[in-house]
């Protein structure tokens, strides 16, 4: 940074007009430098705002849940009863509900998303049909989650209900299973698009070497492409898991919303996100509200950790 005293104000022609002109010129440059510094600082503040936002989210959640953290302690997470009327708060039904729906959705969606990734990355990287598939998969991610929920409620739930009565469990329709099906559809695009870009990064000389040894197409995929991309595919699956954990609206609409521990995957339940969505504006006691916020804090921390691990794996994979 240049200070005022360092600026060359010596003028050969020392007539008053020339001095005034030189001073005006100097002032103009100062102004310009100042604007430049202010501008650079504004850019930095915009960047800093991101850090402030993330810290703010973290601190707000922690501060607002202080009541339940101090009153209920860590056993809040594995207490099995949630009964706000009696002032009993246990998060276990929601943790279990979240884990069940997310992992079930993940298991259902993995074969499909990996297939899309292999199809687009290995079998047919170019052409109108793969292009169509790629755009359609992106469309799956674009449909709003509230529409998935509404469709699930109107179409999927009756189908699940008749399926349940045909296998002899209590036909409720809404529940963990229905939400997992909806979630599975919703998270396919995330693992698929990441997997596709990872698979297209496999060096062709590796594949050609395998073909040269007489491997068939499937053998190349199984013993070259998949092992080479396994960390990338894993990262894609982690990112879809992060999505599934935090998904709110579609799940809230089809999961049935009870605070009991789900007895089977066909039983109604609640996830952390859906219980917040349902009860947040009804919470009439400070501890109740703060217990809900503590759920939000747990959800936030878990998704942040999962996303960061996924991003780290992707960075390492693409830098190699």
């Amino acid at each position: 940074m240049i200070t005022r005293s360092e600026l060359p104000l010596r003028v050969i022609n020392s007539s008053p007009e020339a001095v005034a002109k030189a001073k005006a010129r100097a002032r103009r440059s100062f102004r310009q430098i100042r604007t430049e510094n202010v501008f650079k600082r504004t850019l930095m503040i915009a960047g800093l705002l991101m850090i402030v936002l993330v810290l703010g989210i973290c601190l707000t959640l922690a501060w607002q849940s202080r009541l339940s953290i101090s009153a209920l302690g860590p056993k809040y997470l594995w207490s099995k009863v949630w009964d706000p009327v009696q002032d009993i708060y246990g998060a276990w039904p929601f943790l279990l509900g979240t884990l069940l729906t997310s992992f079930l959705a993940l298991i259902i969606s993995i074969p499909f998303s990996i297939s899309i990734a292999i199809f687009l990355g290995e079998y047919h990287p170019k052409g109108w049909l793969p292009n169509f598939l790629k755009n359609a998969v992106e469309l799956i991610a674009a449909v709003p989650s509230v529409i998935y929920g509404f469709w699930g409620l109107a179409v999927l739930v009756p189908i699940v209900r008749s399926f349940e009565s045909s296998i002899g469990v209590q036909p409720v329709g809404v529940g963990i299973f229905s939400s997992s099906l909806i979630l599975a559809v919703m998270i396919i695009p995330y693992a698929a698009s990441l997997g596709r870009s990872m698979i297209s990064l496999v060096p062709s000389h590796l594949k050609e070497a395998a073909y040269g040894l007489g491997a068939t197409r499937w053998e190349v995929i199984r013993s070259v492409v998949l092992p080479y991309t396994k960390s990338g595919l894993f990262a894609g699956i982690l990112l879809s898991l992060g999505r599934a954990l935090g998904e709110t609206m579609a799940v809230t609409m089809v999961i049935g919303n009870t605070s009991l521990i789900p007895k089977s995957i066909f039983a109604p339940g609640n996830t952390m996100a859906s219980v917040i969505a349902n009860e947040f504006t009804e919470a009439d006691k400070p501890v109740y509200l703060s217990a809900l916020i503590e759920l939000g804090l747990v959800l936030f921390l878990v998704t942040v950790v999962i996303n960061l691990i996924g991003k780290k794996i992707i960075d390492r994979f693409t830098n190699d």
Partner: protein
Amino acid sequence: MDGKNIKLRLGKSYGFQWLIYILAFACLLPLLAILFYIVRAGITKINWHFLVNIPKPVGESGGGIANALVGSIIIILSASVIAVPIGIMAGVYLSENRRSKLAYWVRLCTDILQGVPSIVVGIVAYFWLVRPWDLGPIHHKGGFSALSGSAALAMMMLPIIIRSTEETLKLLPDSLKEAALALGMPFHRVIFKVIVPVGISGILSGVMLSIARITGETAPLLFTAFGNPYLSVNIGKPMQSLPLLIFNYATSPYTDWLNLAWGASLVLLLWVLFLNIFTKVITRKWKVQL
């Protein structure tokens, strides 16, 4: 023996190829089912009357979604007004300071922000922008405002805009900036007159993408914009939006309200599809990498 073996291996190869084809295209079935069902259920509800009227109370048939349409547009526009300048500035900052320690943390926080569940954004926006204006003991329906909903949505737009701005500007040749600086242009004019105009296609695509992303978001609006059965254009007061209307009416037991929700779903779906296709077209036209 060998001949049989190679036949078996080739057969297995083809078998798996077909399995992958089938699984890959099976994903289109739920998508088509959803699109088909929404269009079929919604198309009969949409008419001029539906678009310019507000919902009728329970028991009266008819009514429309004008309040939700107006509310959605206002909320999204004000979210963009908040997020676009900040997002572009932060993106420029990241692309100008690639290796600085602070940029690393900013980038990390942008990644974190992108992964935050939408319901958590809703909670935080509630405590920052709704609670301070709520005078009751816990919440007494006070303090909810469209502006707080916009701020929540802006928080979800920021990471997308920042990343696309950064990625676009990173691809520009340094010689462009150096030439402008060598001509004696001050830094801020280099940014405004050279860097941003050259990268505007990528930046705009990011903005469009982020708008498409937040158009269907419901969870952040639940505790902020809150919803409103009447037409309101005051951003300091609760406001209805399309996703909120769908959520509230879809879970209600009244046929009239369900019909409204189907019509609103179709409108929302068309809106989101239009935004996505529009973004796709401009990215293809401008050859932007996102």
